[in-house]
């Protein structure tokens, strides 16, 4: 079995990096919005988790 060359041609390979950039921007924006919408109580509950034991 050969692991390469199933297709012979590609037009506009530049679309691949563009897709990746757009994906990241969308993803990053979503994460940032979510993070800032999380309530203060939840955040402070989570951030003190390592300090619980002693």
């Amino acid at each position: 079995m050969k692991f390469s060359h199933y297709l012979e041609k590609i037009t506009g390979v530049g679309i691949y990096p563009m897709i990746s950039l757009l994906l990241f921007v969308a993803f990053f924006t979503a994460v940032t919005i979510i993070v800032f919408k999380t309530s203060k109580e939840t955040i402070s509950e989570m951030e003190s988790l390592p300090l619980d034991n002693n």
Partner: protein
Amino acid sequence: MQLQKFSYDNRIPKMFAIATMFWGAIGMLVGVLAAFQLAFPALNFGLPFTTFGRVRPVHTNAVIFAFVGNGIFTAVYYSLPRLLKTSMWSNKLSKIHFWGWQLIILVGAITLLMGYTSSKEYAELEWPLDIAIAIIWVIFGINMFGTILTRRERYLYVAIWFYIGSWVTVAMLHIVNSFELPVSFFKSYSWYAGVQDALVQWWYGHNAVAFFLTTPYLGLMYYFLPKAANRPIYSYRLSIVHFWSLIFLYIWAGPHHLLYTALPDWAQSLGTAFSIMLLLPSWGGMLNGLFTLRGAWDKVREEPVLKFFVVAVTCYGMSTFEGPMLSLKNVNAISHYSDWTIAHVHVGALGWNGFLTFGMLYWLIPKLFNTKLYSKKLASTHFWIGTLGIVLYAIPMYWAAFRSYFMMKAFTPAGQLQYQFIDVVQSIVPFYVLRAIGGTIYLTGVLVMVYNLVKTAKQGKFVATEEAEAPALEKNYKSPVGSFWHAVIERKPIMLLTLSLIVVGIGGLVEMVPTFLIKENVPTITSVKPYTPLELQGRDIYIREGCSNCHSQMIRPFRYEVARYGEYSKAGEFVYDHPFLWGSKRTGPDLAREGGKNADSWHFNHMLEPTSMSPGSIMPAYPWLFENDVDVATTNSKIYAMRKMGVPYPDGYESQANKDLHEQANKIATNLKKDKIQVDSKKEIIALIAYLQRLGKDIKTGETSSNNISANN
């Protein structure tokens, strides 16, 4: 609500902590040996298993997978149960994980020294060990997820996200990069060839740095830094953004290891763009760590643990600033193949991984033995020794890199190269000595730590288990009205796992699929032919001796490289290279066009005594190649394996391959006889000469015309 009783096990973290120190000292000692070998070639001792080409992979693998690996597991087995208020899911699996991992390290070190290597950096171990690693890694994952699913704490702290993200990505990277076809026990060929192999390898190699040396250690930072400072992390929100953007971006950055090579241009640009974007989350994480200590800097002055953490996080910031800079093409032109890369990784490894590990151990060992640190003063001494070691290691390497760059690219007014390669090597040797001294100083600090921690353990009493209690997790939990959906991810580990896998999977696919599927991206060259059986055997000797640790086979399209080494390398030249051997460091000259440059007798004498042909050379001698016979019994299965992977040997060629092999070997032996060298044509040196004389010749015949290169053939 009713409280449930359970206990935290300290035995496994203790075992992993001891293994961390043990392998750390060994791995660094091997590194010091390798460093001195570059300055004093006599330290190669003329033995196969002590030459640099085999020692260097032992050093890198030991430091990454044995030292840092055991460091990760120490942190996970200590922090995971405590963050989730439960015991580890299975003590038996923990033990299998521990002993299995140590066994892999031991067998790995032995087989690497014996010359069993895939030649792919940080993935050198051969196929039986690749399978063993996969099994142990899955066992670790089962144990980790078992623990997470039986937890008594609803939220997963961000450190655990980093553990989960690292686990799933390392699993993916390891499996994809380890696709190889075994030809015998402990010998295999990479399934991919040439450009594709290089792309997969550096997608793996870069992310081994990302998901083995960085993300799990960020988990460690997010747990132990707040613990040691006794205050929460500066911004928990920032840590969430840090996590998601880091794992999203890291996976794309691999191609920056292949700038100016024969990799398609769009893939190189992709690597650069994502590497630069990486600067933001990395620095977000660094600032998050440092700001945690705001208003507590007085503590840093007194507490060695915090001192180590501060320098570790600072080094993280420095290397993650340097990394994106190195991925700019113009900077990479200077740094690639040079000692700059070595300096860069060591600021990361010695500063970030080393110091974070030391800080963790100084905090953890007294806790495990219910006592105080034996000597804070010694720990502070270690801190200063270690810092000095890093500085003395890094500065000579930066200096050497720039020095060699300016010498390499210098032309005389008449348009000739001003310096021979050997002139450059000679002027770099003093820096190799300084670097080796820096490494020795750093190792001394580690030994001081081991002494201090052994004393600490002796003055205390080991606490095998710690009792604890917590209420069980409510079943059918309903989130309060108005909470956001991200809170759901924080409660659902499997969803977190799947999401991380999707995030890193997209990155891997978009990066690799086009190069794999599209013929246009790797133009074929009609004159490029498969290796003859003798050359193939010679190539495997080249791999076995680790020649690619010092010699690249990839000429970049620069005037000073083309003038020095010959026509720059084309993607189509490597289509039969399973695995690719581009290398990543030029301690010796590039060999991509070595074929026909020197006489057979030159190579013969050079391999026996490098300085006889090239005075001032720091290359080791390879006397055993003149005593051992080529293992012709393997020719058959090697040819067969190559054809399986698409190398166009005619059907049934394997049965007559050895006839061709002997014919070619006799020709070389006759040729050597003309130069008054008597040698049995069965010896390994003959095969190696055959391979070296073949390198780059395929397109040499018509190298002036680019007509040979066509996209449609």
